[in-house]
């Protein structure tokens, strides 16, 4: 206990007494944005394709990271609830695949239309619904986004046409939804 207290006080006192040189070196080790190279696509009947480089700013990076972390924690919790039989029926999780929904949302506008298959929780979150509404829907409560009547695969939001229970059903519906 005493050793722990001593260590804590050392860390705290040490933090407030950083030498100026250390701060200067530290600031030069972090960039405010990062540039990524994207593989060029083959083009068919197009003059130009999507851009080959993109820049991710610090704010965006932190925003996406926060979104991915939220989705991860929500999915892990859903996993736990499913194993406790508080969520029944089907529960298709996307922990580990958060970058798909967050990255996709980063590339589109809120006015674009989105439809997906059954692994829909991450997309429901990135399309604007709260974690509370999603978990309430999974547990079949009336506070859920579909009043508890849809469950894991039937969550809808503005410009989001849901998950689909039938494999492949979203392909044809997607062509109809496109403006």
């Amino acid at each position, binding site marked *: 206990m005493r050793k722990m207290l001593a260590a804590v006080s050392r860390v705290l006192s040490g933090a407030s007494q950083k030498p100026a040189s250390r701060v200067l070196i530290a600031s030069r080790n972090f960039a405010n944005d990062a540039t990524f190279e994207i593989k060029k696509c083959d083009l068919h009947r197009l003059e130009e394709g999507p851009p080959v480089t993109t820049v991710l700013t610090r704010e965006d990076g932190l925003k996406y990271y926060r979104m991915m972390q939220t989705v991860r924690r929500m999915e892990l919790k859903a996993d736990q609830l499913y194993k406790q039989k508080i969520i029944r029926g089907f529960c298709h999780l996307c922990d580990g695949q958060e970058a798909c929904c967050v990255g996709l949302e980063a590339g589109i506008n809120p006015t674009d*239309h989105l439809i997906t298959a059954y692994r829909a929780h991450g997309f429901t979150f990135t399309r604007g619904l709260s974690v509370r509404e999603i978990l309430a829907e999974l547990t079949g409560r009336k506070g859920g986004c579909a009043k508890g009547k849809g*469950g894991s695969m039937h969550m809808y939001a503005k410009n989001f046409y849901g998950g689909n229970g039938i494999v492949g059903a979203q392909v044809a*519906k997607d062509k*109809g939804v496109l403006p």
Partner: protein
Amino acid sequence: MAAVSGLVRRPFRQVTVRDAINQGMDEELERDEKVFLLGEEVAQYDGAYKVSRGLWKKYGDKRIIDTPISEMGFAGIAVGAAMAGLRPICEFMTFNFSMQAIDQVINSAAKTYYMSGGLQSVPIVFRGPNGASAGVAAQHSQCFAAWYGHCPGLKVVSPWNSEDAKGLIKSAIRDNNPVVMLENELMYGVPFEFPPEAQSKDFLVPIGKAKIERQGTHITVVSHSRPVGHCLEAAAVLSKEGVECEVINMRTIRPMDMETIEASVMKTNHLVTVEGGWPQFGVGAEICARIMEGISKKPVLEYSQAQIKRLKLAFALSQLSLPSPRSCIQFPGCSCCSCHWC
């Protein structure tokens, strides 16, 4: 022949069922620019059965769309479009082909309003000829009234004459729910008298209400689609023998108008149902079951000591295997029965 709306209107002119549906669709396409028609051969060919004649010339490629032979594909596209806010009319060349797309009709269209907790409606109409035609054999002759009538979330209508056809297609297009309209190919060319009120652009036949085509006192005959005509012919023959039949045209399969049927059975105490579908789990079976469960909450046996019989007509030839005026005449002696072909 140009689209019928261009013709001069006179009281009680003869209009075929085909022209009535054409008129109904034309008026709704004009009224609301979100309405559009898609299906096989609906545009350049003027419709496989010429039901959409003249519409492509009038409204163009964006409103009348020819699709490839892929029912699952274009039914899915239509459902997606309906979810995004348009009002599609999806034509199946016959409802037998709708089996290819039945997943989109039931799982994507019918169930969505419920499963989204009321958030996502699907204002779509699926229409096309249903039931038997002339010699097209088993794979092209199935009646889907019972299959679609089974599903909550769908409304199912089945017109008989021109007035029904025009009024029901207009009501179906204006309804925000998925509606299946089961027409009949053999009725398309049949002309009927079109009353003056049916010539109005706002003429609607309410979904969920049956019509008593002929008043009677001795026996109630309930039917939908083409067999209604057979029932009326049979009723004319029977009335010469002193049996007055009350013929009810259901018009809507789901939600079924049991009040009209019950009121009639309470008056006559006899019931015959006639349909083109198979007997087991059919429309007639449902009517008989509901009558048995109770009129005014009293089981029917208590009320009138009626017997329920289901009679199958085993005819050898396909022409004779459908309800015909002759088969309708054979059965009024029973208290309560369903006629089907098998």
